Structure formats: structure tokens, C-alpha cells
């Protein structure tokens, strides 16, 4: 089957379905009619898309943590704590890394080991192994919407079980859950596998069940310039909408410079709306998510709180629909439930303190123009490369380095583009690789990097990039050289 961006027929979906459900025994329990009936009886306050749309209307920012452990009871306990003590608005169920690689046998071993040692040996909740009943116990134990968050290149079976299990939102996409999360997985295959997920979501939608979909915004979380993640988010939104998805949350990982970040969230909303409208999906409802700093964190908890609060500030001032929260344990490992709740409460305080404020400046407008222009350059080139088809175009764009994600593990990513911060901490291109930017935009980036080099009295070099990677965990935003101002 040739990869094209057009809606699958129901037959095409059902054809693949048996194979998918057979991948692991728990898959055989999924019955679509039963699943749809279950979803339909969920009370309104457990439905993700509704809560997002309300928040968008009233201009508030919802707060959501990440969390998942190996065993069901412990997972319910964890989420209940985050709901009650953490004051979360939205809950996650973060999936473990074996499940993400479809290694269900390994996940099963992780479950046994966790029971044996009395501590979670998995870095998330193995939803496929626990099956529909396990998932429903979670949904029924909580009072607010729950989303599956993962990083699974082939997430078809997980989607089937999650939807039948009552989850009302599902993160991921064919690009964003491949390039940062895999090494050898073909991009064409993942885009196709996510067409399955999106078609399945569309099928529920047609049956009257709202399920929210969220492309993974931050990619590698490490110095990703806004135009790159915007291009990926908009492509995935287009692909999802084509399959009938009607509730989409596009995401962005905080870069650290206030104006760049606020500009990024605001252009992300505007550009996604625009491209969806242009391609016939004006009826889809689009919301945004800001991810608090996704790169390396400082080890000291007081400093980690500072980073968490800074991310919250950006979410609040940009009026993102939701914010994904880090914890003061970030640099060490999966947080305890207490540490996780602390991250949420710190975020909540910032969000509600600042929710009434906005920034609106000329510099912000400039930054928005730059991001929008860059994103358009990339997207238009993708359409061109695909001969008008964005699915094809995306695959070819990665081959050509027209989209290029820094520090990505995937061999389907060119890895030629190098980002570095400018003097104000905004992320610019140190080496633009094959990005299809206009000469003016390239000049702009070159100037910005040179300004910084001058300030630091050194030549632009890869060392600058490395210094930027470490900067936040060492307490700065711009990775200045050791002899800077001394």
C-alpha cells in the first residue's frame, strides 16, 4: 500500500485490525461496539476534549503531570494522589519503554519483577499487558480525564486497548514518536501505523465519541528550534484530521527565552488553525500544550523548582491550553508521587498567579513573524516534495534534511542542522543544514549567532552547542564559556 494522505476506508482499517489485535493476548478482548458503548457512558468530566475546549474558551491553562508505574493498584494510588494532593487538572498514564518497543514479553517480566521486589522496575505503566479491564479500573477510580502518554513508534495495539479501556486522549504521531524515540524504524511505516491510530480515533468520533489526539511537540527536548517542531506538529495535525480526528492538541517544548516561547505557542495555534482550514479541516478543534523545559535538569531540587516555575510562567503568559509539568526529581529519575505533586502545585501557583497577565511587545511580534515565516518555508517545501501530498512530503523532507531534528537517535533523520542560542537565549541555527529557509532568514540566524560569538569572544563552534546543552542544568540558559566576563 502506497503511503498517501487520504482517509482510509473502514474496510482498510478492519482488514489490518485482526493482525493488530493478535499481537498480544489482551488484544483479543477488544470489541468495537462494546468499547464505544463504554466510552459513551463516561461522564462529561472524564472527557479530555471537553475539558480542553472549556479551558480554551475561558483562557485558562490546565496542569497535567507525567506518571506511570508497573502495577495497577500502585498506578491508581499514584494518580489519585496527583489528582487530590497534586491538584492536577488532567492526568496521564505514562507507558513503560518495553511496551513502547512492543516488547510485551519483557514488560511481562518487568511486572513480575516489580511484584517480587516490591518496587516498580518499569519506567511506566504497561497498559497492553494489563489489558482492557486494568485500564477501566483506572478510569473508574479517578474523577478527571486521563490520557495515554508514551513514545511508541507502532502504537496501534496500545491505542485499541486504551480506547476500549476508556482513555479519552492519546499522545503521539508518526513522526514525533519515531524520530526521537527510535533508531531503525522506517518513517513511512510509522506514518502509516499512525494513520491507523488516527483512523481508529476518527471511527470513534463518527460514532459520537470524542477522543483527543496530541502530536508530541518537544521531539528530542534538546535545543529544538520552534519552526522544526511546529512543522512536525502541523503535519501530524493534518494527517490526523484527514483520518477524521476532530480534537487535536499541538505541542511545543519550552526553549527558555520568554519572547521566543510565547511567540512560539501563539504562532503554533494560529498556523495550525490556518493550515487545517486551508486543507478542509476548519471544523477540527485545536488546542495547545506547552511542555516545561524538556532538556537536562539541575540536580538541586530548589533549582529544579526554579526551572519548573519558569516553564509555568511561559505557559501562563502565552495562555497555552495546558502545560505538562516536570518534578524536582527530574535530573535523577522517575519522581516519587510526592515530588511529582510538588511539581504540579508549583506550576498551579504560577499559572493562577499569572493567568491574568499577557505580554505583548514589538519584539514578540517580530519573533512571531520569524517563526511563522520559517515554519511556512518548511511546510511549503514539504508539500512541494510530496507533489501536494503531505504524507509523502514528510518522508521525503526527512530524507532531504528539510525537516531535521537535532540530537535525534533515528537514522532517518539527517542530523545536519545544529542549533545554538543567541545572546538573549533564543534558539537559532548555528548550522542550518538543508533547511529551506529564505536568504533573509538565514542571514538573520547568522547575525544572531555572530552577535553571541562576539560577546563571548570566541568563534562559533560545536563547543557552543555543547555548552548550551548543559546550560540549564548548570544554572544558566546561554552556555557561556568559562572565562566569560571574568
Amino acid at each position, binding site marked *: 500500500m502506497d503511503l498517501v494522505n487520504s482517509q482510509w476506508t473502514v474496510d482498510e482499517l478492519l482488514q489490518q485490525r485482526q493482525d493488530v489485535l493478535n499481537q498480544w493476548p489482551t488484544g483479543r478482548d477488544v470489541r468495537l461496539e462494546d468499547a464505544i458503548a463504554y466510552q459513551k457512558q463516561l461522564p462529561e468530566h472524564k472527557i479530555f476534549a471537553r475539558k480542553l475546549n472549556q479551558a480554551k474558551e475561558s483562557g485558562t491553562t490546565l496542569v497535567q503531570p507525567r506518571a506511570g508505574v508497573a502495577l495497577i493498584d500502585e498506578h491508581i494510588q499514584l494518580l489519585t494522589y496527583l489528582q487530590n494532593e497534586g491538584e492536577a487538572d488532567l492526568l496521564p498514564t505514562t507507558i513503560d519503554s518495553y511496551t513502547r518497543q512492543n*516488547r510485551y514479553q519483557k514488560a511481562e517480566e518487568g511486572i513480575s519483577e516489580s511484584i517480587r521486589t516490591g518496587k516498580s522496575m518499569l519506567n511506566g505503566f504497561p497498559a497492553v499487558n494489563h489489558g482492557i479491564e486494568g485500564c477501566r479500573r483506572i478510569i473508574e477510580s479517578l474523577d478527571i480525564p486521563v490520557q495515554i502518554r508514551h513514545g511508541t513508534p507502532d502504537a496501534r495495539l496500545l491505542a485499541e486497548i486504551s480506547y476500549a479501556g476508556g482513555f479519552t486522549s492519546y499522545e503521539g504521531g508518526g513522526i514525533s514518536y519515531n524520530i526521537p524515540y527510535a533508531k531503525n524504524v522506517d518513517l513511512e511505516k510509522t506514518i502509516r501505523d499512525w494513520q491507523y491510530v488516527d483512523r481508529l480515533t476518527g471511527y470513534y468520533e463518527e460514532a459520537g465519541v470524542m477522543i483527543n489526539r496530541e502530536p508530541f511537540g518537544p521531539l528530542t527536548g534538546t535545543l529544538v528550534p520552534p519552526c522544526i517542531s511546529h512543522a512536525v506538529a502541523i503535519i501530524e495535525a493534518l494527517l490526523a484530521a484527514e483520518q477524521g480526528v476532530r480534537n487535536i492538541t499541538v505541542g511545543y517544548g519550552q526553549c527558555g527565552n520568554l519572547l521566543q516561547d510565547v511567540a512560539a505557542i501563539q504562532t503554533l495555534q494560529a498556523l495550525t488553525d490556518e493550515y487545517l482550514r486551508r486543507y478542509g479541516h476548519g471544523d477540527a478543534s485545536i488546542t495547545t500544550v506547552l511542555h516545561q523545559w524538556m532538556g537536562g535538569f539541575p540536580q538541586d531540587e530548589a533549582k529544579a523548582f526554579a526551572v519548573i516555575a519558569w516553564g509555568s510562567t511561559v505557559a501562563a503568559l502565552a495562555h497555552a491550553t495546558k502545560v505538562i509539568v516536570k518534578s524536582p526529581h527530574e535530573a535523577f529519575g522517575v519522581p516519587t508521587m510526592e515530588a511529582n505533586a510538588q511539581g504540579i502545585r508549583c506550576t498551579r501557583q504560577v499559572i493562577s498567579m499569572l493567568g491574568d497577565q499577557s505580554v505583548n511587545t514589538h519584539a514578540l511580534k517580530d519573533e512571531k513573524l520569524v517563526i511563522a515565516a520559517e515554519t511556512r518555508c518548511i511546510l511549503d517545501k514539504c508539500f512541494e516534495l510530496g507533489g501536494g501530498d503531505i504524507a509523502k512530503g514528510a518522508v521525503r523532507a526527512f530524507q532531504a534534511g528539510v525537516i531535521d531534528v537535532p540530537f535525534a537517535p533515528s537514522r532517518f533523520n539527517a542530523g545536519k542542522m545544529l542549533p545554538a542560542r543567541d545572546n538573549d537565549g533564543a534558539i537559532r541555527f548555528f548550522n542550518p543544514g538543508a533547511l529551506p529557509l529564505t536568504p533573509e532568514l538565514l542571514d538573520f540566524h547568522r547575525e544572531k549567532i555572530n552577535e553571541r560569538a562576539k560577546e563571548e569572544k570566541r568563534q562559533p563552534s560545536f563547543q557552543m552547542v555543547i555548552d548550551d546543552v548543559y546550560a540549564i542544568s548548570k544554572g544558566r540558559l546561554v552556555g557561556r564559556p568559562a572565562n566569560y566576563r571574568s
Partner: protein
Amino acid sequence: MQPKKIVLGVIGADVHAVGNKILDYAFTSAGFEVINLGVMVSQEEFIAASIEAAADVIVVSSLYGHGELDCRGLRQKCDESGLSGIPMIVGGNLVVGKQQFNEVEKRFLDMGFDRVFPPGTSPETAIEAIREILKMPEADSFT
């Protein structure tokens, strides 16, 4: 003198690529020859690469929390493959959650690693440790 050879990789289903790319750059700048297997490396790949390159040391990273499950048996497999005694060091965010490091260290030493490093260890420390293990003379500090 031939440069010493390091086989480097991130073990298991782990895709954290940033630290790996930086270690590669730092080890190379410090004069080592680096065979970088990247992320998602199986025990078998570590062993095959070490034999092929006649490596002096194996540097294992694990960031995502499954390090304990992924590293078990690596020493035994080395011994069986004719790599017995090859120095092996490991670092990253080895276990799930914020745990007492000395207990974590003990568990990994028991698995047969020569040195075990806590979260956030700098490349400088890694290089120093490797020099020590390989009994290399003190060098100018890495910059």
C-alpha cells in the same frame, strides 16, 4: 602509540541520544578511538563490536530506568565470548527513581561492572576514570 579504543553505547530499549553524542565527542577530543554504537544497543551488539575492534574498555550508558534489567548477564556473556576481564563501566540514570546511590552502585558492581557512576556525571570524570582503569599516564585536563 595507538590510541585506546572505547566501545560506547546506550543499552536496551533506551533512546536517550544527547549524552551519547556528547560522550562520543568528548572521548574523541581526549584522544580515544571511539566505536559508538549509539542508542538501543543489545548486549550482543556490545560484545560483537568489542571483539571486532579489540576494544580496551566498554562504556555502557543507561538513562531510562531499565538499566538493572538490561545489564544483567553482560559480564557472563563477555566471559563466555572471550572478553573475560575486559574493563566495563556504566553510568547514567541507572534505576527507576531517585535511589540511594551507594546501593545502586553495589548492585551494579555485583553484576560485574568495574566502575559505576551516578546521574549527571561529567564527561571529564568519565575520561579520568577510563585513564585510571587503563593505567594511562595523567594527561592535560580535557577542555
